[in-house]
């Protein structure tokens, strides 16, 4: 009942409908009152029998009519509100998942709401085409520049020597790395390549990733703690390892000496939860979505090594597996709040292709 009330109060079409329905209710009352008066013999006793009967009929017809209008306006309000809600739900989902390929359902073509849906669909198509355009241009740039850069690399290898050679090669390899990462994210997002899905123990994978970075943590005087258990999940082993490696690598980069990085793997009903938390400065709430975008590096991290493609790659891998990524404070209320990044994957990824 409270839910219905909330729905009614918060929907503009319901409000109009209710206004209408209330008016009709008032009319209904008036008509009923008129009928009562008509029934009163004292007032109409002088009127001929025929007129009395006619008045009574008119009264009944009016009541019927008003009741009909009441029901109809309520029905229309319900119908319109439901359609609005459907449009809102679909739009919300598109924003949430970033899947521009989805469309609103158009059930008719005669009313303004259908026109709105058609228009929104056209806007989505336009957006999709433009985003695809931008993506393919940047992919093409990345792809087409690789060959000339390879040639450049060959020339540097052949014609220079000593420290200059090493510096130039390092610089060029960094550029090639960025292109490779960029193309990799696009290819995962596009979902053109099938995932090499196998039954993977995600706990062991996380333990392996931490073991791999252990010497780095020791050098940086950061305590690396793992708390894992066996967790079977259907995933692409190399991609999942890449995602976990990126998370551990990130956490180590932003944790000051004497700090701690904890890697935890646990299972929930239908999904597995892998989280990496650090005792670093954390990320302000309003910037958390930002760091998931390509090339975005927060001001504080400009000095740290990296290209701003680490977390976007993790996000792409998570979504490709039908999962998601969450960023939050590791220890809320503490002076450096730290960051906890949580990767959630459905246990059976293959059946839910996050296209």
């Amino acid at each position, binding site marked *: 009942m409270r839910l219905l009330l909330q729905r009614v109060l918060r929907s503009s079409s319901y409000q109009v409908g209710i206004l209408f329905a209330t008016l009709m209710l008032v009319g209904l009352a008036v008509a009923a009152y008129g009928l009562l008066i008509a029934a009163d013999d004292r007032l109409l006793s002088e009127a001929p029998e025929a007129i009395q009967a006619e008045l009574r009929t008119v009264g009944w017809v009016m009541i019927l009519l008003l009741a009909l209008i009441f029901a109809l306006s309520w029905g229309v309000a319900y119908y319109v509100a439901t359609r609005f809600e459907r449009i809102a739900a679909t739009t919300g989902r598109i924003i949430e998942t970033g899947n521009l390929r989805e469309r609103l359902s158009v059930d008719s073509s005669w009313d303004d709401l259908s026109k709105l849906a058609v228009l929104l669909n056209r806007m989505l198509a336009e957006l999709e085409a433009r985003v695809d355009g931008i993506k393919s241009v940047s992919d093409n740039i990345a792809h087409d520049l690789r*060959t000339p850069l*390879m040639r450049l690399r060959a020339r540097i290898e052949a014609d220079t020597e000593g420290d200059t050679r090493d510096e130039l090669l390092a610089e060029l390899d960094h550029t090639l*790395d960025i292109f490779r990462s960029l193309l990799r994210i696009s290819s995962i997002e596009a979902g053109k390549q099938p995932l*090499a899905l196998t039954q993977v123990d995600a706990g062991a994978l996380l333990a392996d990733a931490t073991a791999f970075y252990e010497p780095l943590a020791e050098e940086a005087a950061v305590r690396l703690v793992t708390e894992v258990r066996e967790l079977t999940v259907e995933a692409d082993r190399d991609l999942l390892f890449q995602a976990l490696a990126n998370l551990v690598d990130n956490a180590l980069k932003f944790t000051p000496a004497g700090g701690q990085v904890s890697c935890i793997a646990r299972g929930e009903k239908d999904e597995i939860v892998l989280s990496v938390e650090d005792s670093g400065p954390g990320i302000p709430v309003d910037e958390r979505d930002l760091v998931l975008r390509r090339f975005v590096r927060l001001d504080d991290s400009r000095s740290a090594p990296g290209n701003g493609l680490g977390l976007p790659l993790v996000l792409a891998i998570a979504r490709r597996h039908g999962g998601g990524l969450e960023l939050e404070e590791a220890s809320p209320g503490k002076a450096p709040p730290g960051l906890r990044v949580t990767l959630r994957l459905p246990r059976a990824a293959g059946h839910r292709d996050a296209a």
Partner: protein
Amino acid sequence: MRCLVIEDDKQLREYIAQGLREAGHSVDTAEDGKRGLFLATTEDYDVLVIDWMLPGADGISILHALRASDNSVPALMLSARSEVDDRVRGLRSGADDYLVKPFAFEELLARVEVLTARRGGSESAETTSLDCHDLHMDLLRRRVTRAGQSIELNPREFSLLEYLMRHADQVVTRTMLLEKVWDYHFDPQTNVIDVHISRLRQKIDKGHDRALIHTVRGAGYRLSPEQ
């Protein structure tokens, strides 16, 4: 060592051929699959470098044809396709190693040299111990000694040293170590491999006059008694 390079991109073909020649190998080249397959079946090579996408016959068909006729010459497959699936398909078709474009020439050279050395039979299954100068590795008891002194290694350090010792005197790149010792195909973002090696170096070389683990500029590492 005789190499055959089958690659349709002229520039890349010459780049590889020239590099291999400079490293002291003799090189034949083919610009399409048919000519490549003809050369590979009629001549005797120590190693093949084959591009996946080729006009005439693609890399996979060439390998299929060769392996079907019991030709087991080691082959390195080059491809612009980096997905794990492709790598698996490439290796299943009979390639001995797989390298994704773009690559550094040192990476290709290191892999080619490891492939040809493997053919020499140094890596047999019955090997129970490995030696390099005064460094000794007992594979059965999983123990390492240098100049008679026992060295404590954790399992990962042990496998890392084992890989280096199995490929003593050869250059191994960081990517090769990632793939072969850690068994993951991924991009570590930071040069963690260097830190692993420097830890190993601490345990192996510290306190000894002769260093065994060497850094090869722009390429990777080499385990060798010589500088």
